[in-house]
């Protein structure tokens, strides 16, 4: 047996064909001597490269989406979201219709009622984010925790990509799902604009409201991603995300309802997500509210990356 090992050592070709420091692209390598060959080499191999940030993130996002849709998870969540939204859409429309067809309502009040404010906005500004609070944790909890548990994180961490590519890719995958969920609801403004009689749908307000909802969803995703990066257990990540999102949603309301005063109340109101969604519902792009969401998203991604890097140290 050891003589065969000898043959291997002797038959090693000018092995520095292997050393390619600057190289990109395929260079067909010389075939190893026949004494070495046991399995035929079908074609020349292409050398590995280090993919850039966006290529790597795109690859990871693609993989993540393939996994999301290969199990019922993504489908069920999208269906659930659509179902609840549909239910509240119907409820809102019926309430509005009942009220506006009420012969006892005064004409001035009727004039002020419009479809945008009373049917569409409550749906997008309050109902949808609330559903996100309960649904998004299920989406994000597996993003990093499951990789750990499955030992597949090793593949990502030993690939020639940075940790931020991993975080970005997963964030993008979840973002696509949020976009899909929001996109599904675009049916409602279309229906409203076709059917509404008391003035049409205010498209500008609708657009900013959608932007607010999107940013809210992305913020929730970045929080869920960060929490998933801290643990190996999906359940822990999911519960932590759910609790945090509930707190974020409720804190403003609680501060007002309770007797919180002064700075504590100001902080609570600043943290509250609902407060920051209000301007979007009025058709305004408020810089303070925009930066609330964008900085939250950025911090969430940064923390997730740090958490991954921490493992390396």
């Amino acid at each position, binding site marked *: *047996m*050891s003589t*065969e*090992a*000898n043959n*291997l*050592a002797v*038959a*090693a*070709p000018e*092995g*520095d*064909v*292997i*050393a390619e*420091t600057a190289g990109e692209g395929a260079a067909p*390598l010389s075939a*190893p001597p026949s004494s*070495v*060959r*046991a*399995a035929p*080499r*079908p*074609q020349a*191999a*292409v*050398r*590995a*490269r*280090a*993919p850039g940030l966006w*290529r*790597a993130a795109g*690859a*990871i996002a*693609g*993989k993540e989406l*393939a*996994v999301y849709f*290969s*199990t019922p998870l993504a489908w069920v969540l999208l269906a659930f979201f659509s179902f609840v939204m549909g239910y509240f859409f119907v409820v809102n429309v019926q309430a509005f219709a009942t009220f506006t067809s009420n012969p006892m309502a005064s004409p001035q009040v009727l004039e002020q009622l419009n479809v945008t404010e009373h049917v569409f906005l409550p749906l997008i500004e309050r109902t949808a984010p609330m559903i996100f609070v309960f649904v998004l944790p299920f989406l994000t909890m597996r993003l990093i925790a499951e990789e750990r548990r*499955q*030992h*597949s*994180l*090793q*593949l*990502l*961490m*030993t*690939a*020639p*990509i*940075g940790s931020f590519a991993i975080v970005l890719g997963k964030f993008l995958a979840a973002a696509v799902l949020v976009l899909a969920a929001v996109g599904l609801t675009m049916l409602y403004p279309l229906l409203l604009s076709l059917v509404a009689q008391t003035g049409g749908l205010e498209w500008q307000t609708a657009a900013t409201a959608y932007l607010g909802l999107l940013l809210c969803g992305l913020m929730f995703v970045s929080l869920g991603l960060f929490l998933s990066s801290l643990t190996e257990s999906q359940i822990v990540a999911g519960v932590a995300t759910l609790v945090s999102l509930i707190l974020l949603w409720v804190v403003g309301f609680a501060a007002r309802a309770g007797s919180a005063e002064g700075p504590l109340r100001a902080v609570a109101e600043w943290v509250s997500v609902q407060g920051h969604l209000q301007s979007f519902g009025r058709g305004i792009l408020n810089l303070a509210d925009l930066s609330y969401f964008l900085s939250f998203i950025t911090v969430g991604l940064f923390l997730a990356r740090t958490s991954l890097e921490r*493992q*390396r*140290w």
Partner: protein
Amino acid sequence: MIQVKNLTKRYRDLVAVDNLSFELGAGEILGFLGPNGAGKSTTMKILTGFMPATSGSATVAGFDVFDAPIEVKRRVGYLPENPPLYPELSVRRCLQFACELKGLGGRQGRAEADRVAALASLEGVMDRLVGNMSKGYRQRVGLAQALVGDPDVLVLDEPTSGLDPSQYREVRELIRSLAGRHTIVLSTHTLTEVTATCQKVLIINEGRMVVCDTLESLHAAHPGATLEEIFISLTAGTARAA
């Protein structure tokens, strides 16, 4: 191709790798042996950039693992103890993903996925879900993943574990065919595999290197003994009650 100098890895009080030093030239195959918990997997994780060392250095293909991790990772194919696979995806998809991670996407990626699948004899099961496959097949998919991008260095952690005899022989032949073009570090408990494929042997115990030598020198130093006997005699003295 690989230079490891005074590599140490400490987890608080536990020293997993203790002052390990060895060198491996291009095209050589190193058999990494040791009792369970000796530090083999930890050393491999450091070599592949998965975790950092506490002290010491490791240079792979001319790049320091600490200073230029991306360059090292480009040139290393790693098969961990548990092959990193996604049970919800097909074999083809998993391999394509591995190709994308090494910068080979699109048509190139698909061609490369087919190439490594052929090397690991996976052509017949490309569309099967990884979660539905036996351990032996999953091992081969992991091996194919490690071969993506024709890496200079292959780090294989127990590549033949869980394989049946004919699969075992196929993988063994595959590893032998890779010699010369690739530098291979392979850890195993199957000593026949070491005698069949490796030129050099490194025995590690409790984090410390016991011996690092070519197979011939080892046999010359212990005349008449099989590798198993040599292994046991060298690790018996310092073995913990594991």
